[in-house]
């Protein structure tokens, strides 16, 4: 599948992945994340069952202390 991840086009072998799988593959293993699929906010408890498929627009933001 081909998706847009943080404004970059990325290719993956699978036709679809759960958010948990995508985050693991891309090494986004941080505790504090804001995740959106096609503009919809996805909460942490939904990561296992929300899927990412071909054509999706995904945003992953790692929140870190400082400001």
């Amino acid at each position: 599948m081909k998706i847009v991840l943080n404004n970059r086009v990325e290719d993956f072998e699978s036709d679809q992945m759960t958010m948990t799988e995508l985050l693991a593959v891309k090494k986004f293993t941080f505790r504090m994340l804001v995740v959106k699929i096609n503009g919809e906010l996805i909460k942490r408890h939904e990561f296992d069952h929300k899927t990412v498929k071909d054509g999706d627009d995904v945003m992953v933001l790692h929140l870190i202390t400082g400001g």
Partner: protein
Amino acid sequence: MPQSYTEQISKYLSRFTVGIAGCGGLGSNCAVALARCGVGKLVIADFDIVTKQNLNRQYYFHDQIGRLKVHALRENIQRINPVVSVKAFDLKLCVSDVIELFACCDVIVEAFDKAEMKQMIIETVHTQMPGKYLVAGVGMAGWGKSDIIHSRKSGNLIICGDEVSEVSDALPVLAPRVGVVAHMQANEVLEILLKDFSPVSE
């Protein structure tokens, strides 16, 4: 006599309101930059007081140590641009505060220190204030590495920073790098506010 380009921009910006969530390194510097440009109203919120350790990056002065940040910042802004209206709230923002205090804002600047607060405001604005622009600051500790500081967009969320440099005992925050991110945030606010602006030529 026609107004100068800068005067036209300042007059145009006077109709807008910008919320500043947090008045530390990001918030104080961003608020001052926007006040200098002529943004009409700033809604500023922070529970904290000015300490000596803040002075290495935050827009406060030595004789303001011990004072509430929102009061000190309002005073500094008024000294720079007396025409800017500043509404100051000395509280630690919760979800309902974000919704209530920033409802009237054209853009909100996320300038918190704690990651948990950044998450709270990003999620609250996204779910409870759809369509509202939010400019967040993520990753600004240390020095140098100017080339990795960037800005990216996702819908109405704009993220400024390097997204990796976390503040810790091993990596402190300092004026230059914090200032770069704070001014990048102010610059993104201007891009939003000025999108329909066109100058009147002489």
